[in-house]
């Protein structure tokens, strides 16, 4: 899923493009969240014991609802304004990848059966995680839940990540949250990872800025897209033997996939037959998204208390008391979101002071800084 090894590549080659941020600092910000990815994660982790998930009386899985409910409340409580974007029709090129995933899942289902027969607990857990699939029912449940909570739901014409990126480009949202690095390839100006992690894990949010990524890698957006295709994306195969580092080197040297294909040793690197890289590039560059004018104002409304109780407590066996408490939290959070941010009043200014302690990535290439570079991240604030 996503772009293979891109996080590591950026950490090594463009460290300034990623910044650890405190969860609270997104206070008051509108954030577009890739819903399918989140639901998938909830199905994997929430309330899992072996191959068993949380279920209601009828035996239907409710892990996704539980996850969606609690995590969304956490976002709201911190004053964030989340909007969930759901996948539409996948592009044709992705079908291949999807069918691959399908067959993997089939394999895992087989493996799970054997493991269950043998009673191997570790394998049961491992394989059952791999059999997880987000169904239409799961998506519909979550959409209903979110609407009842007063959180906006947007259905993308095609890929959710592309739609998120488009919303962010048009300034409808401040940032895109996903675990998929694709978002950067789609050109989301600001991209957040680990936003949906449970607070108990204490993982800081990682913020990526595409402008800084391009600046530090010294690439254009088109070149960056080519780099991602070479690294390996959802839409087509990559060239065997070319990983992130090599891809970056090649792109810097030749500038585009076409030039690379002309210049590389074809004996050493096997280029897939009928390699649809141009098609993949087009999907990243001009994905099917809604027109800026069609994008409705994203609105957050008051929760439908009765609706939530009916849906969660009566239909899905949630604890009534907890749901009522959670609704109170949503209402309290609503109040909080009216707090303004200082940045809306004051603009960032450049400080003229030089840090007394020189940063390891200082632009001045004095001997001292060169020496300090040898210990990456040594002096960084944790």
């Amino acid at each position, binding site marked *: 899923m996503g772009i293979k090894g891109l996080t590591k590549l950026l950490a090594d080659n463009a460290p300034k493009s990623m910044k650890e941020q405190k969860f609270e600092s997104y*206070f*008051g910000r509108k954030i577009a969240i890739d819903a399918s990815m989140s639901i998938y994660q909830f199905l994997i982790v929430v309330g899992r014991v072996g191959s068993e998930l949380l279920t209601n009386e009828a035996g239907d899985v409710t892990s996704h609802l539980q996850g969606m409910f609690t995590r969304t409340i956490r976002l709201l409580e911190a004053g964030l304004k989340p909007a969930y974007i759901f996948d539409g029709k996948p592009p044709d090129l992705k079908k291949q990848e999807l069918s691959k995933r399908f067959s993997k899942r089939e394999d895992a289902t087989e493996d799970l059966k054997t493991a269950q027969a043998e009673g191997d607990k570790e394998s049961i857990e491992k394989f059952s995680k791999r059999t997880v699939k987000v169904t239409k029912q799961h998506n519909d449940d979550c959409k209903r839940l979110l609407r009842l909570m007063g959180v906006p739901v947007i259905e993308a014409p095609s890929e959710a990540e592309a739609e998120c990126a488009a919303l962010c480009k048009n300034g409808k949202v401040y940032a895109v949250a996903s675990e998929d690095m694709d978002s950067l390839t789609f050109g989301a100006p600001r991209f957040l990872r680990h936003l949906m992690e449970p607070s108990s894990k204490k993982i800081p949010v990682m913020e990526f800025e595409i402008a800084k990524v391009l600046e530090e890698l010294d690439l254009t957006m088109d070149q960056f897209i080519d780099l991602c295709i070479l690294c390996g994306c959802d839409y087509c195969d990559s060239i065997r033997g070319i990983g992130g580092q090599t891809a970056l080197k090649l792109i810097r040297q030749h500038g585009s996939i076409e030039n690379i294909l002309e210049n590389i040793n074809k004996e050493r690197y096997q280029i897939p037959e009928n390699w649809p890289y141009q098609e993949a590039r087009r999907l990243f560059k001009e994905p099917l998204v809604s027109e800026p004018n069609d994008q409705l104002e994203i609105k957050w409304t008051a929760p439908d208390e009765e609706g939530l109780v009916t849906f969660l407590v009566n239909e899905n066996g949630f604890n009534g008391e907890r749901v009522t408490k959670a609704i109170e939290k949503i209402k309290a959070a609503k109040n909080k979101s009216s*707090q303004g941010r200082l940045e*809306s009043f004051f603009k*960032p*200014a450049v400080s003229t*002071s030089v*840090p*007394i*302690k020189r940063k390891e990535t200082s632009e001045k290439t004095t001997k001292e800084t060169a020496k300090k570079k040898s210990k990456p991240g040594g002096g960084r604030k944790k």
Partner: protein
Amino acid sequence: MLELRLVQGSLLKKVLEAIRELVTDANFDCSGTGFSLQAMDSSHVALVALLLRSEGFEHYRCDRNLSMGMNLNNVSKMLRCAGNDDIVTIKADDGSDTVTFMFESPSQWNLSHSVFFFLCLFVEWLSFLRKGQDKIADFEMKLMDIDSEHLGIPEAEYHAIVRMPSSEFARICKDLSSIGDTVVISVTKEGVKFSTKGDIGTANIVCRQNTTVDKPEEATIIEMKEPVTLTFALRYMNSFTKATPLSSTVSLSLSSELPIVVEYKIAEMGYIRFYLAPKIEDEEEDVKPQV
């Protein structure tokens, strides 16, 4: 090279106590004009700006503009080791990743001179002995790299400026926060009104202009160009009032659609100013995010 010597060491302690609840890590900036700090709280709702002008220091040497990243809790720990009468010196070398706080305890026996005049000679001898025992403590603290966002704060004309005793303001904030979470501050010709609403009821406190007082610091002065009404989170206001020991008066500057400025003047040295973004009535008016 940086060397700042402050006779009133306790002042630094008070400054730290005033801001460390709001901000955990911050860059202290030193320039020829003075020692300053600007930092936001983690949710970017409040900002603190501190200035201690170079003239206020007994000795001030700063060769070039420098910024030093510090964890304020750690600074506070260091400063707690200084006595209230100690002279504090802040020192740092270029390119070093530490800062040194030096505390000098003054000779305790000097007072005795005037009181026990007849024991002058004896005391002189004693204090001579004591001088040898005067304490000098050096505390070295590690600096850190902080990516802080500096905001440019334009000079603005405020619709209303209220000056009042700082203890009075602290009391109002404390009292109101036992009833509600937010305070509505409205300034009219009649005076300044602080009000709140909570589950248990409501509260309204009105302070009228009052200049006929014995001491000037007890006065309440309202300069108003236009009436204003703004709403703020009390949690932040309460943390601003931690600066009360620094000054006997506080001034509140308000303009509609601008953050409030809560300023405590630091005698002969500078100021500590807190900026707080107001609550926005209609959330759809939300300012577009900046890229």
